[in-house]
């Protein structure tokens, strides 16, 4: 087996894990499968593109050290995360909040499917379907040993994704808001009894989920390219990873995303790169048939 595929899989897996965390949180706290989540990645990537583009007029466009990106993108990253979180909140306020009150979760799924299409098409309208890049500099892949090569950007993405995962774990286990989110996910009625305001938790969930999706989107744009369908094309692997890891489990989402990413990459030498969705779908079917609660999930 070629270790290069494994390395590529780890990169994809890190992105899927990061994107999946927001999806699994929304799924367990807001209680619906949010089909807009993939497009949150896209929104984040484009928001960073716009902000970094504007900033590079003042700060210059050259990269720092071996990386293709410089201060403009680093500053743009938190802005893009906030913008995506704000969009998530706006959608909630316009659409999901009203439907949630009626208590029909499947109508929420339907609405999110529609919102996904609308958001994606608006991006396509604003930015055209042409792929975009944060930088046109070519990066040289460095040898890492075991005949594996990776660009500095790819290494940065994997490391930063790991850091984000750890930060998230601390947030969820060591802060009052993190515990409140987990409490609402597990038992919303008891959480209210314990004095947790569900509306605050819902807002925090959208901020966090949207922000992490944007982070994954920027990383994806950095290592692949920026397209209107970039996030939506990841939605199926994202769902597969979340369900594989167990809905509601943040470590599960990270691990599940990694497994799906590596499985896709390992399948490439046998069936070609065009079959990622098929691999994710087969994994998804297998999990649903064999262990529907996922690796880290609990029986509901």
């Amino acid at each position, binding site marked *: 087996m070629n270790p290069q595929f494994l390395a590529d899989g780890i990169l994809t897996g890190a992105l899927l894990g990061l994107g999946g965390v927001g999806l699994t949180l929304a799924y367990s706290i807001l209680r*619906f*499968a949010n*089909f807009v989540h993939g497009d949150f990645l896209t929104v984040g990537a484009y928001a960073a593109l716009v902000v970094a583009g504007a900033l590079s007029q003042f700060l210059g466009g050259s990269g720092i050290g071996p990386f293709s990106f410089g201060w403009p993108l680093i500053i743009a990253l938190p802005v893009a995360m906030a913008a995506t979180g704000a969009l998530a909140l706006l959608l909630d306020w*316009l*659409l999901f909040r*009203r*439907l949630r009150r*009626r208590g029909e*979760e*499947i*109508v929420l*799924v*339907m*609405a999110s*499917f*529609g*919102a996904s*299409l*609308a958001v994606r*098409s*608006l991006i*396509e*309208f604003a930015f*055209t*379907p042409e792929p975009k890049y944060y930088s046109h500099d070519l990066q040289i892949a460095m040898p890492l040993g075991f005949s594996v090569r990776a660009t500095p950007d790819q290494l940065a993405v994997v490391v930063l994704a790991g850091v984000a995962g750890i930060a998230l774990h601390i947030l969820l286990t060591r802060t009052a808001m993190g515990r409140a989110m987990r409490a609402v996910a597990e038992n919303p009625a008891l959480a209210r009894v314990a004095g947790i305001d569900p509306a605050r938790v819902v807002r925090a969930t959208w901020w966090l989920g949207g922000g992490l999706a944007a982070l994954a989107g920027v990383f994806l744009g950095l290592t692949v390219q920026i397209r209107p369908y970039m996030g*939506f094309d990841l*939605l*199926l692997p994202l*769902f*597969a990873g979340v*369900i594989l890891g167990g809905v509601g489990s943040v470590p599960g989402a990270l691990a599940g995303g990694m497994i799906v990413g590596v499985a896709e990459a390992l399948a490439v030498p046998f069936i*070609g790169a*065009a*079959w*990622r*969705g*098929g691999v*994710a*779908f*087969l994994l*998804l*079917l297998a999990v*649903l*048939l064999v262990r*529907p609660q996922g690796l880290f999930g609990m029986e*509901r």
Partner: protein
Amino acid sequence: MTGTLSYLAFFLTEVLVNFIAVLGLNVQWGFAGLFNVGVAGFVGIGAYVSALLTVPPWHGAPGPGHVGGLGLPVLVGWAGAVLASAASAAVVGVATLRLRADYLAIGTFGIAVALHELAANAQGLTGGPFGIAFIPHLLAAVPPGGLARGLLDLAITALAAGAAWLVIDRITAGPFGRALRALAQDEAAAASLGCDPRRLRIQAMALGAAAMGLAGAVQASLIGYIAPGNFVPILTFQVWAMLVVGGVGSHRGALFGAFAIWGLWSAAGSLFAAILPPSMATGGASLRIVAIGVTIAISLLWRPRGLSPPGRIVSRFLR
């Protein structure tokens, strides 16, 4: 004059093709409460299976290495489409229907994505991005183009749609439909009366997908050409919009919804083509999708049961 008439015939033909798919979705969602996000996938299965069954072996698609079709009669192709669609829906149903409702959504979404990938990449089978051409028409003797062919197409589609309506109406008005409604109202009570909820739902999935497969097969043979780009999420979404606008649970509403949404879709296309410069044609196509998205969001928010409410018996069961 003939131009207008031709266009009208074409428009109504498209409305009716979509109506067949909406009928299927109405069985799944309107009667059984099953949320299918893979409508495009099931329509696509119908289109591709019928094409592969009916395309003559020596024609095939322009792509290299195409295995070609079997050259079977068109109606056999349609029957194969119906069966293949129903079978694939049953598989997804078996995998997901014992789980939370939205796992079915994810599963059907998954099959649509995977099938689209298959269509786009399995060049030897599906022609890949080039698609499959020379799909035989039901009445091969009538030359394409012109008002006569347009009216014939309309007649054929109307027959197919009428047949689908009749069959589905018979089934949903009978014991099967009653069991589905009982299930939607109170699962425990229905189960205690001897209905097997999971089996009923798998059957509803299959019946609905059968109609979607028929829609795909009819469309394929009318246009004579299919490509992966015809079976993308926007199609799923249009069919959903038609159902929601037309009135969930009502077959007649489905017809109205197909008419309204296809009208909106076509009108939005012409409108954006008229007001946007040609350089922004792709932008206009995107805005048109946004328009549909906003329409369905508004109908979900303000008219959850659609504009044409279903009959009293149905509405009592649909909350």
